[in-house]
């Protein structure tokens, strides 16, 4: 990644580094580790982190365990993305999980990938992994197909390319042509089904959330094939209804 060119960028690079590490590992990060990751002098990083801690973007952990994400950054995250969309989607995700007993997620298209924003947990013993911040490919996920189904041609072309696609699960589309056929099927149905396209035994169903004619996000239900495959079409219809309800909530003032 290009190193930040501004003081603003250089300071916040440290906060972003601490956030990323804690999100992935649940642990704080010391001065030396931050300096190594961003390629800067320890003394500079030490001063920078101390200033970031002063304003709450990072917090100093007890017992010399380094720095963690600060309350200021968590507060800013509350307004990040589209808080109205999340507020409208969350109760519907909860209802879908209660009805189908599977993980429900809200995802957006971000840097050519499917980025999970919210994820409810299924209480079943066997469940599909998922978490906020998880990034998945667009071509072999139901959420990715729902996000691309009505996307402008240049967005689809940018996401799929023209040749062979990266490997996915046993049933993943191998080429952009095949992926486009699946997008067309999703467009006709109003929802997308990915059956073993991401991984063996993983079945996912997703519907786009369209506001003012534009797809803003996708909501999805994902479960193991032996339990969820038979109910996939019913889940698709429920997801479309939930996506419409979210869009309706957003259309108001």
């Amino acid at each position, binding site marked *: 990644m290009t190193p930040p060119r501004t003081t*603003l960028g250089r300071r916040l690079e440290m906060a972003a580094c601490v956030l990323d590490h804690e999100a992935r590992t649940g642990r704080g990060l010391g001065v030396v580790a931050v300096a190594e990751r961003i390629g800067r002098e320890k003394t500079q990083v030490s001063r920078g982190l101390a200033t970031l801690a002063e304003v709450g973007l990072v917090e100093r952990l007890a017992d010399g365990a380094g720095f963690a994400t600060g309350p200021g950054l968590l*507060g800013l995250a509350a307004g990040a993305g589209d808080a109205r969309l999340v507020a409208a989607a969350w109760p519907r995700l909860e209802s879908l999980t209660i009805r189908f007993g599977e993980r429900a997620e809200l995802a957006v298209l971000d840097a050519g990938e499917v980025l999970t924003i919210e994820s409810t947990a299924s*209480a079943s013993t066997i469940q599909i992994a998922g978490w906020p911040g998880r990034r998945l490919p667009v071509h072999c996920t139901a959420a990715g197909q729902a996000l691309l189904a009505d996307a402008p041609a240049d967005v689809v072309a940018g996401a799929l390319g023209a040749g062979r696609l990266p490997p996915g699960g046993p049933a993943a589309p191998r080429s952009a042509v095949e992926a486009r056929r699946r997008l067309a099927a999703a467009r006709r149905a109003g929802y997308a089904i990915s059956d073993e396209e991401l991984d063996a035994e993983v079945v996912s169903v997703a519907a786009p959330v369209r506001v003012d004619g534009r797809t803003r996000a996708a909501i999805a239900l994902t479960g193991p094939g032996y339990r969820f495959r038979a109910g996939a079409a019913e889940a698709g219809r429920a997801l479309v209804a939930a996506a419409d309800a979210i869009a309706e909530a957003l259309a108001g003032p």
Partner: protein
Amino acid sequence: MRQATAAARSCGVDVLAVLAEADGPVPSSRIAALTGRDRGLTARGIGDLARLGLVDGDPAAGAALSWSLRAQAGRVVEQRLVGRGQTVLDELARGCRESAYLVRREGARSVTLAESLPDLPVHGGSWLGRSQPAIRSDAAPLLLSDLDAASLAAIFAGRGTEPVQPGEPRTLAALERLIAQARIDGHCALVDYVERGTMSIAAGVWDFRERLVGAVVLMGPRDRMRPRATRLTRAVRAAADGLSGELGGRPPAGGGA
């Protein structure tokens, strides 16, 4: 926007605050005007923040705090809930000399994520990792308080066939009354609910999204807890509020705080 301190300004808090307070993407020229920064430098700074994944968009068309920032913060909450929750439970169990648990709802069920048990001959037993219908949890009125009516009715209808305990609601209306009271109080105290002879006190844990992400529960023999209920309730509330603070959240206004 409030006047930024020198430290806050050097960290770009003024820029981030402009983006946080905006309804949509803000062009860098507007950010520069609002923060009194140089336009060219601000545009380059926004470009840096976009490369770091902290903002979406671009300097000219407008930038906004990113989806990625929200998602990563959500993941931090999941990581911290158990990690920092354990410390909170250990202090609560030690201070109150009763068993302390951290529970959350997953769909129609509740799961015990962490626990701390006192070194006493009689105490609430281990529930770690155990799952049960959410309606039977000793934090049920809290864990069910954020559901819509249809989901609540579905959960009540599917509550299972275990014997009903003396304190358990017999009707959906009775459950709704317990939930309404928990919303007003910000906590719930249940007697003979999970089992005859028990008492439990629970308070909600909230995160930066103003979302209920779990509950701290103190549970033990009814006759030992009831005489100390007021003090124990204060301790449970303080523990839950402390954990909420670690997650960038706080109880909703009017929640008995």
